[in-house]
């Protein structure tokens, strides 16, 4: 068991290193001199040189990367370099990330929950009444949903719920600690748009597993005990059918980053997504690297959690792992 974890950890580190290195390389290849982007086109030569020295642009990429890595290990992600921001007003990347994180986290968690809330009942019922009217209707809807990107669903939702019905605000973010109700009103729409993208994937996968499980003998046995269909479905069939769903959840997380960028931009949320976009456009190397690393790390951790969840759900896995 310990060897297994150590092996995975090692692999994770390698992947993270590669990811961060790729990031540096890519940004280095980008045209344009960051110094001018930061200071403006008419910067004085000595200011430009100072920025170059600061960013280490006069040194080869390997040295820069090594330096950055060394800083990271000590917890220092560097400072953010944005255009037209004076020396004194510059913030550390860590600060930037920590202030943007809760927003993205809330968005992601909420949309995940919404997606599960919708997908589980639909998947279960569609499997239970496989081939029936509900199943077919759901599949048709999913087919459309899967072909509709979030940058279409979000404006659609905005059009219907905001502009026509006036139910929710259009853009902007209100923090949870300031005003929970307003916060909810602002975040529910973008979260729903993201959730809609995930629901078909979850439901389809759950349905397939469920159909397999419902054919098993122990389900027949449960019915023979006189349990109601609802009890059989939820208490007996759901847990063994959740594995694909769990894996799917882990996989979807990767796509969620992309969706978050779009949604945060659309709704003017100051989260990690819009931070990333802004910093890429501003050639803010440190911030980009910081965010990418953070995202990659979070992704890896979440998948680790998914693996742990497997053992909780299925005692067979647990027994095998400890054997």
């Amino acid at each position, binding site marked *: 068991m310990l060897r297994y974890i150590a092996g995975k950890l090692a692999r994770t580190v390698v992947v993270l290193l590669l990811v961060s290195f790729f990031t540096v390389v890519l940004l280095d290849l980008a045209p344009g001199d960051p110094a001018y982007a930061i200071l403006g086109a008419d910067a004085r030569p000595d200011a430009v040189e100072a920025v170059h020295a600061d960013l280490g642009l006069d040194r080869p990429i390997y040295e820069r990367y090594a330096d950055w890595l060394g800083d990271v290990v000590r917890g220092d992600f560097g400072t953010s370099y944005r255009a037209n921001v004076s020396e004194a007003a510059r913030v550390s990347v860590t600060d930037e990330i920590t202030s943007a994180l809760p927003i993205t986290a809330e968005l992601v968690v909420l949309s995940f929950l919404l997606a599960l809330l919708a997908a589980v009942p639909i998947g279960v019922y569609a499997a239970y009444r496989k081939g029936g009217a509900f199943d077919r209707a759901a599949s*048709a809807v*999913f*087919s459309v949903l899967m*072909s509709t*990107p979030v940058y279409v669903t979000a404006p659609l939702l905005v059009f219907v719920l905001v502009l026509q019905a006036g139910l929710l605000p259009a853009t902007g973010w209100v923090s949870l600690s300031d005003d929970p109700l307003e916060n909810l009103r602002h975040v529910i729409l973008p979260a729903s748009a993201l959730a809609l993208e995930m629901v078909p994937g979850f439901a389809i996968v759950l349905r397939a597993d469920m159909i397999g499980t419902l054919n098993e003998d122990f389900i027949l046995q449960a019915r023979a005990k006189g349990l109601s269909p609802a009890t059989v479905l939820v208490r007996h069939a759901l847990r063994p059918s959740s594995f694909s769903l769990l894996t799917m959840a882990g*996989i979807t997380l*990767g796509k969620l980053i992309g969706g978050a960028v779009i949604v945060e931009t659309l709704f003017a949320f100051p989260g990690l997504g819009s931070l990333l976009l802004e910093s890429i456009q501003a050639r803010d190397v440190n911030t980009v690297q910081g965010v990418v690393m953070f995202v990659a790390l979070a992704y890896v951790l979440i998948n680790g959690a998914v693996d742990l969840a497997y053992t909780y759900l299925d005692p067979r896995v647990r027994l095998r792992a400890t054997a």
Partner: protein
Amino acid sequence: MSRVLPPEVPSSEIEDPSDPVGPDEGRSPIEEGGLGLLTTGTTGAGRRRRRRVAVWLAVGWLALVIGTALLADLLPLEPYDRIVRSLPPRSPIGLRLDEPLGTDGFGRSMASRLVYGARQSLLIAVVAASLAGAIGTVIGVVTGYMRGKVDETVGVLLDALLAFPALVLLMAIASIGRRDVTTVIVALSVLGVPGFARVARARTLALAEREFVMTARSMGATTWRIMFREILPNLMPVLLSVMLLVLAAFIVAEGTLSFVGLGVPPPQPSWGGMINEGRQSLRVAPQLIFTPAVCLVLTVMSFRVVGEWLGDRLDAGEGGR
């Protein structure tokens, strides 16, 4: 968008229904009910009929889109140079007799922009998918057939590539070059390579054990010859099916790039760009967003329908053989 594969998670049996390239099976994710129009139903005959109708509709739509895109210059639409002007903003006029789909905020014909935009979006998707397909397939076949160190190193690299959140990769690549069509194509291709490589590799692994390969080898064929004269032709049908699904994904991806400001630069029309531009007028003229959006959704759906149907046919054929 390519899927980011979580490390070590037992996902080999899991097929992401919206991912054009499934896991190491090499076949498109035809889940029962993945496209319910097509595969669920009470009797086999009803299902097949429904499916055939859906496939024909999809083919019809695609023919319409591709046809108008190719013949754009011959159609009675506003000519290209007129729709790429950046005029001062004028209120979009609704349906007019000579302008059935109305005009956009710059007084440019929507119909014309849609058609030329189709051409642009399709061009990007097709070229990028072909590039990704070619490169990815070669990589897949080579690693799948030769195995060993080559396979492992390439595998690690591809994994690292996949570990990037897809959008980040896209944005990073797209921001390197100038903002134009070529850059978009390159960025999408890079994104698509690992997917094709995975499919090709999986199929190659399976095919390498088959008799006709053994026969060729015993007749003294060289490795390269086997790979490209024996294995590759057998991959074509599957790759075609995958290609269609990748096309669908790339059309969506092009829109995403436009959204983050890295797509086809205005005033060149592209569906993604049109959707992005239409955002501002959502309140007053929702059709500016929704007309290209509907076209995009229908096209993506059609590609998926046909791609999955092809994949099903091929699987059935494989099984029967």
